[in-house]
Each structure stands twice: as C-alpha cells, then as structure tokens.
C-alpha cells in the first residue's frame, strides 16, 4: 500500500512540474506581450499630447500603427477632448512656460489662406512670416508646420 502511495506521488510530481513550467512560461509570455502593447500605447499617448488631439499624424508614423492602435489613439483623444470641454479649458496649449505673449513664426508648409486664429484670420503661404499669439502658434509648431524665429 505504501509503495503504491509512493508511486502515485512520484507519478503526480512529474506531470505537476510539467504543468508548472507550462504555466510559468505562459504567464511570462503574457507579461512580455502586455508590456510590449502597453509601452506602445504609452508612446501613442505621448504623441497625442505632443502633436495634438485627433489631428492627422504624419504618414511615417501612421503606417506603423496597427488597427487597434489607431482606434486607441482616437479614443484617447476623445477622452481628453471631453475632459477639456467639461472644464472649458484647453489643457493642450502652453506646453512650455511662456516668455512673450506674441511670437514670430515662419511658415514651413503651405497651409492655405483664410485660417481663422483667435483674433484675426491669416494667410499662411509658405515661407511667410507672421506675428502670432503664442497659444495659436503652438499647435502648428508642434506639428512641424511652422518654426519659431528666436533672433
């Protein structure tokens, strides 16, 4: 009887360790996959803060997204937008402490005419220079469409 009991114990142990290794490697794989996807989502959130919400991302970045990530980017932008509208305060601008209320910018890409800013409408032809309010210009600078002239 005791011998049988011992045999049963050893038989169980072999399978038991096999199952344990399977379980441990499964959760390790799960951790790796989740970390990968979670870190990519982190980078996407960073992009949303930098580039602007629901704006068109540059092509090179856009084509590296998976479908689910595109959806996540849109969802996250929507959440941020709804928070901002609830507070009626635009948390997206003013990423850097302001030195001057107005800054000089040069337009790098042709944006067309008749763009409405907070206090006037402007014609953003390529290489034209403008004297804009900081909050307006920031979103264009962040997307690389304008550059600030610091001299």
């Amino acid at each position, binding site marked *: 009887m005791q011998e049988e009991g011992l045999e049963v114990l050893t038989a169980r142990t072999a399978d038991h360790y096999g199952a344990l290794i399977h379980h441990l490697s499964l959760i390790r794989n799960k*951790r790796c996959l989740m970390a990968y*996807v*979670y870190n990519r*989502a982190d980078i996407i959130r960073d992009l949303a803060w930098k580039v602007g919400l629901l704006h068109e991302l540059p092509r090179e970045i856009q084509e590296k997204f998976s479908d689910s990530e595109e959806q996540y980017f849109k969802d*996250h932008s929507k959440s941020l937008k709804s*928070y901002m509208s609830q507070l009626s305060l635009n948390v997206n601008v*003013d990423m850097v402490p*302001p030195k*001057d*209320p107005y800054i000089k910018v040069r337009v790098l890409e042709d944006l067309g005419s008749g763009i409405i800013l907070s206090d006037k409408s402007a014609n953003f032809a390529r290489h034209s220079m403008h004297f804009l309010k900081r909050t307006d210009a920031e979103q264009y600078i962040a997307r690389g469409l304008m550059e600030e002239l610091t001299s």
Partner: protein
Amino acid sequence: MASGAGEWSTAQMDDYETLISTTDVELLKRAWRNEKAAPEILPFEEALVKRAKEQIQLMEETVDEFAESGHDPLIASLYQMDLDRAQFLLRSYLRVRLQKIEKFMFYIWKSDAYRHRLSTEEEKFGERCIRDIGKHLEETVLSKLPDNYQSLLKQSIISEEDDMVPEPQLDTFVVAKCQRATRPLFLDGSRQSAGFDNRDDHFQMVPGDLCILRYRPFQEELMSGNISLV
C-alpha cells in the same frame, strides 16, 4: 471683489495685484510644484482651481477692455503676460495630474483613498482611459490567450492579488523644503520612540530647511502642508 465691468482705478489695480500675488498665485504655484515633484497623485485643490479660473477670467475681461479702450499698450501687454503665466500654471497643474492618472490608472481606480483625490471630471477621464486601454489590450493580446489567463489585472486566475498593475514608486528621493515646524520623526517614518533615547534616528526639520529625502515617510507632512516639494 468687484466684477469686471466698469473702469478700474490704478489704486484698485495695485490692490488687486498684491492680493493676487500673496494668495492664489502663490498657492497655485506651490500646488503645481508639489504635484510635479511627487511620485503619486495628490489631493485635488478644488477651491483653489475654481478661484484661479475666476480670476483668470477677470483678468481676460480687463485686458480686453484695455485693448478696446486704447489704453497704454505696454501696460496692456504686461497684463497679458501676467495672464498668460497664470494660465500656464493652471494648465500645467491639470496636465501633470492627467499624465499621472494616465500612468497609474488601474492603481488609482482600485484604491478608494486615491479615488477621493481626483476631481469629478478627472474620475470620468480615468474611467474612459481604463475602458480604452482595456479594450485595446483585450483586442490585441488577451483574447488570444487561453481562458484562465485573460484577466487584465491578474497574471492568471490563480494569482492572489492584482499583479499586473503598476504602482507609483513611493520610495523615490525628492527635494523638500520645510515651511512649518514638524514633530521629530524617524527616518523610516514611524513615530513611536524606541524606548531608549537614540539621537541618531530622530530627524527634525526647522522652517527654511532644504533636504533631500525619500518620499514615503514624509507623505503625511506633505499633505498637512508642513513641507513642500521643490
């Protein structure tokens, strides 16, 4: 405080300026600095944010009046700059909190103490964040794993606690400045004396001290306002 309509005399303007510099802007600056330096999310300063928003609106109306009435443009642009800086403080404060919520959304969601520190809008934002990332993770990873491993918060259903939730690192070092006298504490955060008078373990901060210390033992002091982070 007078409403924004009507002419403001210079004396009233000066009073308004001094009022703003000794109270709300200073408080907002301190709250902003604390929030930036702390590893966890701190209680939301609801009243302060509300007052700051009202004052910013007041300033905006004043500046608009100046622009229309053709007042000295230099002074108008100075007021505009002050307005911009106040707006930056407020926005940065809210932004830092949002980014902390994004980083630790599950941890904040699980513990009641942290949830009380959020404002109602931030709670809603946190809910939506969790929903979005949950959906994203499920679609890409979790639905393809075997049944027992599909939980978002636990590694598998046999884990005893939620192991896949990132926690804020409360043991990081921060630079703290003492505002008011604190009671002496041990560096590991406990307050009871060890029975014998061991001078080495006591640590007392004098107002005006600037120290670098671990965050965790000094959480309470930060909440009560005795110290502030830099």
